[in-house]
């Protein structure tokens, strides 16, 4: 591997931006390195993104990407379990990892001079993870606790999970990132080993570095630590495109809860799947017209105006890998019911179809986007997130810089057009959380009063 230094390819040169210079490189083994300079403070964030997440999974092994993320802290051939975190900690670092449908990412935030430590450890666990059964047995329990914490004991999260699994039939978007409990209970170390070998390789990874660094020096470091790693034959996931939905779907989730809740979603394209590039940006503007702040329609008209809702929201992710949903949700106020709230939300959608949004609304959304682009620069972590998210789903990081321009180009007619084209009842899924009694006044069993004793 001696020749890597000389043969490293500068893929895309340097792109100067008002916000900071971004440099993109690719090593011979396929690893992509993107460096963004931010010299405001002597700190650096280093993120390693793998193109794998729950949308790459199939039934029976759901949650495997996320469990593997946990096991990535459990030792390599060269480092025992826990040492990764100890070394980062001793070096003043903060670290963590996260898994989504489309990616698994690991990050450290450090004082700048400690960057080599991050690279050395990340390169080590990219190819030399040592999956051990004893560690796995404990960690799978931790993940199940995480599932209970995040989903099973949160009525709205349960509702979302059920809703998403009903909205999609074939597309792997339906898989919950945390995994179904039964799949976690039956997960095997071999499932993880297989998943690791299949996806963890330099040619399936993007390293993003943002901070007080010199790009050429970072490249040199990357070559030193990641350069020697062997690439893998990566077989991209099959498309698993969702068949057309032929009519509205409704589900009810009954769970102990105090407050009712509704969630609805229309099938919509994302940037990676859209026929017309402007459409996802028009949907993004539409989401902001409904829920881009306290002056947006849902809060202004449903929470403060008619007071049908105590809260109401809309959401859309244009950067997902596969086509997804345009979401609406809310909680009814006072004596209003879920059907009242749903009717009010549908009325909002109908209005967007019937007429153009006002110039004032459009201008408010655009002002917010322009200002946010400045505010985001206050966080090196977030700057890295934006680059990594795009690259991990196969989009170009430059799209992040185009965002403001693209949003500014959206017209009121385009917003109306995407509303009419995509917000259709036949692609709609509607969920209702129907609260069951909580029985919180219930007495605990008598023998549990001893509390702190170990039995």
């Amino acid at each position, binding site marked *: 591997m001696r020749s890597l230094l000389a043969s490293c390819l500068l893929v895309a040169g340097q792109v100067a931006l008002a916000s900071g210079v971004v440099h993109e490189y690719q090593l011979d083994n396929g690893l992509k390195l993107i460096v963004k300079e931010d010299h405001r*403070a*002597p*700190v650096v964030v280093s993120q390693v993104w793998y193109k794998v997440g729950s949308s790459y999974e199939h039934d029976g092994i759901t949650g495997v990407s*996320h469990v593997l*993320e946990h096991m990535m*802290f459990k030792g390599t051939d060269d480092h025992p379990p826990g040492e990764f975190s*100890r070394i980062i*900690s*001793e070096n*003043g*670092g903060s670290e963590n*990892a996260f*898994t*989504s449908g489309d990616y698994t990412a690991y990050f450290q*935030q*450090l*004082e700048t001079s*400690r960057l080599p430590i991050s690279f050395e450890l990340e390169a080590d666990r990219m190819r030399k993870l040592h999956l051990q059964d004893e560690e796995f047995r*404990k960690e799978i329990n931790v993940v*199940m*606790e995480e599932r*209970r914490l*995040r989903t*099973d*004991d949160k009525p709205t999260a349960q509702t979302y999970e059920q809703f998403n699994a009903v909205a999609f039939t074939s597309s792997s978007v339906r898989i919950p990132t945390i995994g179904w409990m039964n799949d976690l209970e039956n997960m095997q170390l071999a499932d993880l080993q297989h998943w690791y070998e299949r996806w963890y390789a330099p040619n399936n990874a993007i390293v993003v570095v943002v901070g007080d660094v010199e790009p050429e020096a970072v490249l040199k470091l990357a070559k030193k630590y990641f350069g020697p790693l062997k690439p893998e034959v990566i077989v991209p996931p099959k498309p698993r495109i969702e068949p057309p939905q032929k009519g509205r779907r409704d589900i009810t989730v009954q769970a102990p809860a*105090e*407050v009712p809740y509704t969630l609805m979603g229309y099938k919509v394209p994302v940037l990676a799947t859209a026929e017309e590039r402007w459409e996802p940006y028009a949907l993004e503007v539409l989401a902001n017209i409904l*829920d881009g*702040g*306290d*002056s947006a329609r849902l809060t*202004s008209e449903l929470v*403060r105006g008619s007071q049908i809702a*105590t*809260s109401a*929201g*809309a*959401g859309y992710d244009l950067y997902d890998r596969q086509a997804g949903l345009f*979401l609406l949700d809310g*909680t009814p*106020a*006072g004596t209003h019911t879920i059907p009242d709230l749903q009717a009010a939300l549908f009325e909002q959608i109908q209005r967007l179809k019937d007429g153009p949004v006002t110039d*004032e609304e459009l201008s*408010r959304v655009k*002002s*917010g986007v322009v200002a946010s682009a*400045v*505010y985001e620069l*206050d966080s*090196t972590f977030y700057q890295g997130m934006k680059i990594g998210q795009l690259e991990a789903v196969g989009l170009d990081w430059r799209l992040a810089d185009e965002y403001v321009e693209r949003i500014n180009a959206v017209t009121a007619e385009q917003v109306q057009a995407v509303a009419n084209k995509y917000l259709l009842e036949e692609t709609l899924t509607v969920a209702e959380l129907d609260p069951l009694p*909580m*029985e*919180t*006044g219930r007495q*605990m069993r008598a023998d*549990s009063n001893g*509390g*702190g*004793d*170990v039995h």
Partner: protein
Amino acid sequence: MFTRIAMTACSVSAASLSLWLAVVPAVSAMPVIQHWVTDNGARVYFAAAPELPMVDINITFAAGSVRDDGHAGLADMTSTLLDMGAAGLSADEIASRVESLGAELSTGSARDMAWIKLRSLSDAGHLQPALKLLADVINRPDFNKADFERERERTLVSIRHSEQSPATVAQYTFFRLAYGDHPYATRPGGTLESISALQLDQLKAFYKRYYVARNAVFSIVGDLDRKAAEQLAEQVIGQLPAGKRAPAVAPVPVLTAAVEQRVYHPSTQTHVLVGAPGMHRGDPDYFTLYVGNHVLGGGGLVSRLNEEVRENRGLSYSVSSYFSPMEQDGPFLVSLQTRNDQVDDAIGIMRETLQDYVEKGPTEKELVDSKKNITGGFPLRIASNSDILDYLNVIGFYDLPLDYLEAFNGKVMAVTRAQIIDAFQRRVDPETMVTVIVGGED
């Protein structure tokens, strides 16, 4: 905003972080904090940050729930109503004007304090109208009856919503038991009964008493110079009556006996909190307890509690301990959640770990490692404008020395094992703690 439930972070909250004095050019990165008092008595803290064309402002009043005076939720509702109508502008008009400028305006409150925050682009065309709106909200809130009734209704729903969360139920149960008759005991957001009983006149009186210049700390970070910062503070708060600073919060009584409460909740996990009133801002033991706790349960993925409960036994996703210093002793809390049928085991491990640590303290190596983490990660603490804004506010509100940040690493490095053992034995008594256990049956 709609939040998607897709991302699942691996470990615990990204705790603290940091580095070696020798290596870090920490001084060059240290914000220069300037401080002055306006003519009407508001304390201003300012740090210039010319790198980005934006300004962050935080105006904090000693107007938290500790001032509720038996009407739980009064401070919180007062804070909520500020931007719901001011100077004759409706909530819609305020929101629409703020957002048309690309600015972000928010209000919030906690036990000690209530605050108003503004983030704006720094050019005059954006900043000046945003400041005018901020001044309206602070100086001329309307407290309209209709807005009050609507926000009361929303608050009632949010209180009921919070009952769905075993973690939240555990928190307020803990505060009730650990703080007894002290005003820290109550729920800052109020209860169904207390919110239903609130009167609009009470909010107006609360505002008049506590939203005054002498009771305010005004923090500014951004792309402006000292002169502009002085003008800015004057423009926003210069017209506010001087008033009186709120009296000091009463000291918190020490617990004398252990209390344990189990609360039924229809959840698959049981949430456990063990703790007691701990320490306050400016506490003489502050750095000793802070560093000591870092070893015990404050170091994120690397701590005694995490090692024993999560790494060695897989009992919990998130286990930690922390001191939450307030004007008077805020809580020291150890927390975990675990499957209902193994809660007694988990509590046992938690108690043993705590007991052992209080008796023996950290090993020399643990202490050195924690110091390396805290001091080595110092640059991360002040890397962004919003980080610095938070520090200015804490320094100002709690009357901490202006060199707090410069002195930080030195104070951490000076802590010894013996000091930690001594401080924990004086301040953390496992025999007189409150234990709250919220969850379902097996």
